[in-house]
């Protein structure tokens, strides 16, 4: 699936690398004991360390280190047993220390891989360059006062993982698939909630283009802080087109930082390379190098959950699902768990169809979440059991499902109350068939003279007369016998 952009001078390829800032799930900040809850009153979760008070010193939070290692292992990446925290120096009102503690030359996690699940069911590997731990800055509020800015330091010092991909993506769709897959892995691992709207996952996109067949990369631009998958895809599409237009008009692209205006759907210059900060990175003398023992890493590795790729493999193997179905079901862990509960001991394909079909549709309509589903996995399983043992037909099952949504009652109770039990009594069905054939003597004659297609009509009439409760297989069998 190659994505090429047509230009005046030929086809162009887009080259994309993403830097994702993922907020670490932890009770306390990276270097202080202050809380990290989202949505707290401004400046209520700030320790003297986070406020950059004189004489305050950072102390590493071991939970955050564990989470970074866990994430690294989840990305099949190399864990660096020795890493170093460095100061990234710049002035801003919401950066109280005047520097951000980050990792520069020696990050905690090295190279890894993410497998993208593409819409056609195929996969594609994207390299991870590195993952490092760093502090978040505070937040500047510019809309609270006509001439002043307000500062909220609740976020100051919160642990972030910066996850940097290699420039391996070639289309906005791949970038979108990368973000979704990364988010899925982080959620499986429980290391980041992946909530882009709340800012706990933010994305910087590095974009360049080159004519098809050209080796090497051209100058890239970095689009900062894009906050949804859709916007990332839009921003890349816009930016790639902009580069091509510039090149084809004989211009050159300047390396710069750009912002995406989601209202206008365009990117615009934020600062050029000449105005780029000189961050004066150097090892933070307040912190010793971070040294991990092999046991520490091994213990985390032993506690890793089954991740989406492995789960997908297993679903394909054990449940004979298609790569596409399996991919859809494992994207979210709660969904995968829901599916497994439904599928366990049952027809997996039927379970997959029900979950991805009627159930997903109902879930969307209800506006509820998989954690609080409109129909429980046990009840949906029960419904499938009723189909499997011929208590109800597939058609009646849809009706039962709607009633389950309405009433929340188990399917067996609904079938019982509404008398929806399938009729398998041969005599009773024969009676219905006789009545139908008697009422449609003309059609019977037509059928007998060779109009085979009418067979379906008779089945329909019998089903209708039995209010859908007649067992369709029996109806077929008996009709065939009667019509000779």
């Amino acid at each position, binding site marked *: 699936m190659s994505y090429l952009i047509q230009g005046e001078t030929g086809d162009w390829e887009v080259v994309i690398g993403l830097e994702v800032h993922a907020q670490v799930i932890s009770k306390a900040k990276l270097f202080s004991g202050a809380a990290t809850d989202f949505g707290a009153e401004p400046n209520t979760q700030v320790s*003297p360390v986070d*406020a*950059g*008070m*004189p*004489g*305050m*010193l*950072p*102390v*590493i939070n071991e939970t955050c280190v564990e989470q970074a290692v866990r994430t690294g292992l989840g990305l099949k990446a190399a864990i660096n047993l020795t890493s170093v925290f460095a*100061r990234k*120096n710049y*002035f*801003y*009102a919401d950066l*109280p*220390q*005047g*520097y951000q503690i980050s990792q520069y030359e020696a990050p905690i996690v090295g190279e890894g891989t993410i497998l993208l699940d593409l819409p056609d069911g195929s996969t594609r590997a994207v390299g991870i360059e590195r993952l490092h731990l760093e502090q978040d800055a505070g937040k500047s509020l510019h809309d609270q006062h006509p001439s002043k*800015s307000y*500062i909220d330091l609740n976020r100051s010092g919160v642990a972030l993982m910066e996850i940097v991909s290699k420039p391996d993506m070639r289309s906005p769709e791949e970038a979108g698939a990368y973000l979704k897959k990364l988010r899925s892995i982080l959620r499986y691992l429980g290391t980041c909630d992946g909530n882009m709207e709340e800012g706990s996952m933010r994305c910087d996109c590095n974009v360049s283009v080159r004519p098809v067949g050209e080796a090497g990369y051209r100058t890239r631009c970095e689009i900062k802080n894009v906050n949804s998958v859709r916007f990332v895809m839009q921003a890349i599409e816009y930016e790639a087109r902009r580069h091509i237009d510039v090149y084809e008009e004989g211009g050159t692209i300047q390396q710069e930082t750009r912002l995406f205006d989601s209202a206008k759907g365009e990117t615009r210059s934020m600062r050029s390379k000449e105005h780029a900060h*000189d961050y*004066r*990175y*150097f090892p933070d*003398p*307040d*912190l*010793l190098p971070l040294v991990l023992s092999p046991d520490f890493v091994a213990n985390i590795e032993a506690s890793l959950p089954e991740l989406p790729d492995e789960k997908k493999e297993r679903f394909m193997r054990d449940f004979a699902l298609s790569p596409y179905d399996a991919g859809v079901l494992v994207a979210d862990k709660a969904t995968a768990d829901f599916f497994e509960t439904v599928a366990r001991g049952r027809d997996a394909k039927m379970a997959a169809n029900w979950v991805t079909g009627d159930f997903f549709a109902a879930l969307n309509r209800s506006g509820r979440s998989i954690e609080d589903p409109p129909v429980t996995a046990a009840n949906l399983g029960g419904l499938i059991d009723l189909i499997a043992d011929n208590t109800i037909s597939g058609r009646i099952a849809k009706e039962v499902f709607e009633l389950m949504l309405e009433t929340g009652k188990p399917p067996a109770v609904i079938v019982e109350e509404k008398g929806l039990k399938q009729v398998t009594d041969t005599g009773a069905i024969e009676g219905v068939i006789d009545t139908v054939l008697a009422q449609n003597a003309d059609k019977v004659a037509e059928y007998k003279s060779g109009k085979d297609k009418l067979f379906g009509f008779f089945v329909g009439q019998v089903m209708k007369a039995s209010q859908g409760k007649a067992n369709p297989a029996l109806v077929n069998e008996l009709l065939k016998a009667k019509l000779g």
Partner: protein
Amino acid sequence: MTALTRLTIAEARDGLARGDFTAMELTEAHNRAVEAARGLNAFITETPELAMEQAAASHERIRTGRAGALEGLPLAIKDLFCTEGVLTTAASHILDGFVPPYESTVTANLKKAGAVMVGKTNLDEFAMGSSNMTSHYGGVENPWRKRGDNRPLVPGGSSGGSAAAVAARLGLGATGTDTGGSIRQPAAFCGIVGLKPTYGRCSRWGIVAFASSLDQAGPMTRTVRDAAIMLGAMAGHDPKDSTSAPLPVPDFEKALSGDIRGLKVGIPREYRPEGLAEEIAAVWERGIAWLKDAGAEPVEISLPHTKYALPTYYIVAPAEASSNLARYDGVRYGLRVEGATLDDMYRKTRAAGFGAEVKRRVLIGTYVLSAGYYDAYYAKAQKLRTLIAGDFKTAFESVDVILTPTAPSAAFPLGEKMDDPITMYLNDVFTVPTSLAGLPGISVPAGLNGEGLPLGLQLIGRPFDEETLLRVADVMEKAAEFKALPAGVEA
């Protein structure tokens, strides 16, 4: 009552225990001395009422048999230590009005041991200086005078206020901090004992940072024994400082056995540069002789990278300082000079808030960390630092302590050397290598020069072997018999 201010920490401690006088009397005497010596400008903030409250509480604890190691003993605290509820300035305009809501670990430890704080002492701004002349609150006068010359002299720096206060008997001891010599050089200039412990021995938490990889708190006292007692109360592992050493605190006072027989004392030949003042060379020779007489063996050693120490220090320390001082931006506390934009506010605040020496070091530090210069300066300095530390490591394979002069001269007149930073930086030539290697060093008063000014000798020890260091210093102190008193302190 004057006599009470003349006691050593050990004597005052024992006197309180015996009930010869009360903690209130002892503190009252010091409060009065502090007030009488205001001309020295040794204090930025005096805390006489707080001191009396603490003394009364100490009295109660002594009475009920719950006395700590420093119970009721009045100390002066360098105004670089954050003290809860008491103005903390770092001698900088930029920290105007800053009252910390927390107490530094070292001063908290002292409080826990029962110490009484008489006030916060003057220093070079952000501890950057060797004369105390860079203080926003003005220079400190050394209580010593040259014979027949009443011109005021500097107390050294950066812990100049602490050194002057201890020499002038305004506190039984004082805290100092040492980054490149800031405890040892003023101790030498003021005729007192100053100990810079091993890096990591005392917590840096709550001390306004100058250069994080070098800063270390230590005691400034009138005797080696007092330094041992005070260090015992200040030191200890602190989980709030990642660079604090997870080691138990030995009983340093117990280490003062008086017996140094068989110890090897290294005499580094690189510390005898051409042009070393005659009187400094002479006092050093006397020191070697004293230790030899006590049964130790002087051994000539080489510390070949010594000549790179000052340039290395003046890259590493400003680099860290440029980053450490970025937080003083006018946004959250201290001075703010309003500006049209955020950048304008930064510019105006920092222009008004920092003095010339601080600005010079922030600029140097910013430069050496800049893209394109980092490798030539900062990275190279780190390599040299490793080599300098390696020199000491090698030396300590064959010696137990090292003896050197503390400073290349005695105290100089107030206002001198201010026009040439390099000359000023040379004051630290003998102390900086120890700091770069993170080793403990102690300055002990060794005698007077021809003009009647005190000179100090420095002993350098193995990492975390303050015990041997103090043991040798104690012997040397006894041999030196330094009994001279500064002007204004009656014999």
